[in-house]
């Protein structure tokens, strides 16, 4: 199947099991949300999908477009179409956003065609400026050092800018709404909406309803203590907003 399939995924961090058998399917073209209280394993799931070495998969399977990705390096997962918008993107001082993006695009294209010579500068600039406009970003952002001294909102916008430029088929957004004020939330969400297509699956990780108001998920999953405990339509998110997680069966 086209999309993301997670089957009975168990994950440990430093010998402590955090995820106790996650089952989840996000078909291409759909938007899914995972909600749940703090410390429940949501970010663990995001990092595990991307292949962070700290997270050990002890059993289970993750398929992207029908292909297992657990043995792949993070870059190979990226080349395969997976994208993670980090909750806390790290700074790479001295490397400009533009330089970084161009290098990433070239790496993606070289993965397909080893003889690829690199994206011509004018073409690259054109795409970058286009996408920046979409996210109402200042052009100067391209010349700043990646995430170095960025505000919370700037970091999140640059994450989505990367998503826009790398054109993934499966995007995991880890609390992209945190640290955004109302305007920034609207801009970032609308930016994500323009990227929606029947080729792209999106998995949104969040605490709150407010970003979902824009992204309009097809399915909402509730995660508690390392397990998906309930799945339902968009109304489930509204119910959680009103009643909290106490009403959800543990």
């Amino acid at each position: 199947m086209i999309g993301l399939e997670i089957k009975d995924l168990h994950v440990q961090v430093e010998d402590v099991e955090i995820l106790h058998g996650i089952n989840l399917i996000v078909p291409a073209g759909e938007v899914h949300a995972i909600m749940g209280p703090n410390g429940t394993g949501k970010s663990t799931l995001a990092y595990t999908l991307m292949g962070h070495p700290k997270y050990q998969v002890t059993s289970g399977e993750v398929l992207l477009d029908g292909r297992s990705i657990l043995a792949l390096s993070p870059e190979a997962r990226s080349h395969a179409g997976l994208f993670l918008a980090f909750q806390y993107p790290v700074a790479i001082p001295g490397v400009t956003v533009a330089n970084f993006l161009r290098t990433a695009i070239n790496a993606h294209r070289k993965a397909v065609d080893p003889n690829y010579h690199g994206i011509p500068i004018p073409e690259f600039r054109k795409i970058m400026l286009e996408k920046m406009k979409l996210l109402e970003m200042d052009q100067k952002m391209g010349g700043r050092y990646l995430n170095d001294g960025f505000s919370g909102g700037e970091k999140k916008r640059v994450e989505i800018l990367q998503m826009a430029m790398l054109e993934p088929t499966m995007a995991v957004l880890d609390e992209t709404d945190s640290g955004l004020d109302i305007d920034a939330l609207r801009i970032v969400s609308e930016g994500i909406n323009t990227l929606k297509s029947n080729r792209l699956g999106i998995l949104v990780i969040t605490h709150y309803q407010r970003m979902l108001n824009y992204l309009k998920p097809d399915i909402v999953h509730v995660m508690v203590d390392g397990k998906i405990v309930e799945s339902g339509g968009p109304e489930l998110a509204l119910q959680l907003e009103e009643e909290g997680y106490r009403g959800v069966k543990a």
Partner: protein
Amino acid sequence: MSEQEDVLRGIEPQRYDFKDPEKYVFKSRKGLDAEVVGQISAHKEEPQWMRENRLKALQQFNAMPMPSWGVDLQGLDLDDLYYYVKPTDEIQNDWDEIPEAIKNTFNRLGIPEAEQKFLAGVGAQYESEMVYHNIQKQLENQGVIFLSIEEGLRQHPDLFKQYFGTVVPFTDNKFAALNTAVWSGGSFVYIPPFVKVELPLQAYFRLNTASIGQFERSIIIADEGSQVHYVEGCTAPQYSKNSFHSGVIEIIVKKGARVRYTTIQNWSTNVYNLVTQRAMVHEEGTMEWVDSNLGSKATMKYPACYLVGPHAHGEMLSMAFAGRGQDQDTGGKMLHLAEDTTSKITSKSISKDGGRSSFRGLVYVDKKAESAKAKVVCDALILDGKSRSDTYPHIENRAENVSIGHEASVSKVGEEQLFYLTSRGLSEEEATTMVISGFIEPLVKELPMEYAVEMNRLIQLQMEGAVG
């Protein structure tokens, strides 16, 4: 800057690693004594005082012990070197007049092309002698002097004698003594008052013969309110026998003048590089050293600013890359000898494949240097468990009203940074290279565009195959 990368595609290691057949007009026998020094002096047809000066310096050299600190000099056999190799009879200001083989060398290195594109003047040294020296006509008309050091002595004997050996006396250290005894080649630069030379002057140093010693000597005098940027580049082919480069650079920055001296040292890894570079900076003058050491087997080099006039400013940007078998012992010295002087040293070093990089710095604030301000920042990256990084800054203060700050850190490339970059599709090698280019960015951005591109490219070459 990235737009330029395509232009310089093709800078490959083999671009430097080619050998010409040996052809020379004169080659001294191996080893060093008064006779060899006499031969060098005779070939240069120089005045008596210089000949005597050389012989005095030779005595000093023989009397001084080898340095007991810094790099391992065991592999440097001073008796197994040719101290003087004269490639041609005459120096030219037209590439077409230069013997074909030598001209081809510099063509392959891209020097004539660069001269046309972005340089105000070029000097090119091959073995022991400058073979080419040329400057834009309009600068010459403004009184700018840019000559080989020998022509400087011949054409401007008084100016030469006034400054030679005043910034770096031959008693300074063993290798300054050696250089004073056998110096050959280098540039003589004088910028008249208030003349600003906008484009860089470049000197290019090339070693071709094996087991050779190159001892260039340069004097740069920036008169009141003037401005100049001097760039030196160095390459040599790889031989199994060791070669030796030991230059002395003396710079005089007069009142309100501004001099920048940029080195891109990319000697092959059989070259010992022991260099003394020093600037005397007068009132309100500014001296900037931009020093990047990528090549050589072992380098010992600590460019210095003697801030002798009030409000003089010294700046040092140092970058060292120590790979397999390399020992980069570099740093900088700032001596605050007058009030309100300021200085800043920024050092970035990278060690990999068992290489060793050491930062050695000195900030000395004299009693007279009231209100001096000095800052030293050293950062080192170690890329694997076999490599080594040392930091030895010295801070000596004799004044009351001062502000001196020093910071240093040693780290490896952060795992979180690598994960972030690989999650965007970069290979580990690309990601590491990217972190490193970000690490040295503060230095690279100070280089003229063309050199910045070359530098990034060189770093990429050094990094290839760095990650398993």
